[in-house]
């Protein structure tokens, strides 16, 4: 079905657009809250003594806590009028995470985002974001690929 002229579609010329980093301070209560929300009772995510005994500086964040420190960077791009993503048509199509240094309470994580791809497939538009997060010791923490699907009809 052809797309009408009034259906906003993402601007393919914005491939490669880079956004400056967002900084996120990791706190004990937020890590505990996140672990509870995913129902994960691993003591490393809530007990400082257990985490230290296992060799961590402090309580460690579950790997998918990456969504928490990345969300501001993601939101900035998703709501960027230049990019033209229609939130009412947006679905999460896919996800990839590569994890490096673990994230612990007390770390500050900086996440920058780059628009990776924008392409159409039938009535769908695919938009991918590449995020790169580092800690305050300049070590890689996570590289992630977020695939969004914008329904065209």
């Amino acid at each position, binding site marked *: 079905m052809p797309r009408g002229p009034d259906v906003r579609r993402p601007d393919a010329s914005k491939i490669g657009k880079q956004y400056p980093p967002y900084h996120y301070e990791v706190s004990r209560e937020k890590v505990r809250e996140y672990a509870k929300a*995913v129902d994960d009772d691993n003591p*490393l995510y809530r007990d400082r003594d257990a985490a230290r005994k296992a060799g961590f500086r402090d309580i460690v964040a579950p790997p*998918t806590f990456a*969504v928490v420190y990345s969300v501001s960077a993601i939101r900035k791009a998703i709501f960027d009028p230049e990019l033209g993503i229609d939130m009412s048509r947006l679905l999460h199509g896919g996800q990839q*995470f590569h994890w490096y240094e673990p994230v612990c309470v007390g770390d500050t994580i900086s996440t920058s985002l780059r628009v990776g791809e924008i392409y159409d497939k039938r009535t769908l538009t695919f938009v991918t974001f590449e995020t790169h997060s580092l800690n305050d010791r300049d070590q890689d923490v996570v590289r992630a690929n977020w695939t969004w699907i914008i329904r065209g009809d």
Partner: protein
Amino acid sequence: MKPGDDIEELRVTPDRYLPFRYAGASGDFNPIHLDPEFARSVGLPRSILHGLYCAGLLARATVNAGGGDPRRLKRLGLQFRAMAFPEQEIVIRGAVKESGPDHALIELEAEQDGRSLVGGAEAELR
């Protein structure tokens, strides 16, 4: 861990209010996860679970398969294939595809009510 081994199955039934706790914890307040009326207005049957909540379950199952140390989780990749809903059981299963002294590749599945929620889901352990 040997190729062909199954990892321990994870069964979770997200309650009615889980999407609100997950939204609060993650910062993702997209109303398709929280507001059934809004979800229906954009063509969904009802409000749906956050995809990354399901990815979090896959990560948890994999970390547990690796003995509970999150440092061992190197990579997780997946496509979202079907919507997931609160108040229905989600079953996470995985099988070891490859393994060596310092790595393992696990193929993962997430199912809810006979629907396959993810495709091409795999995780790498160090």
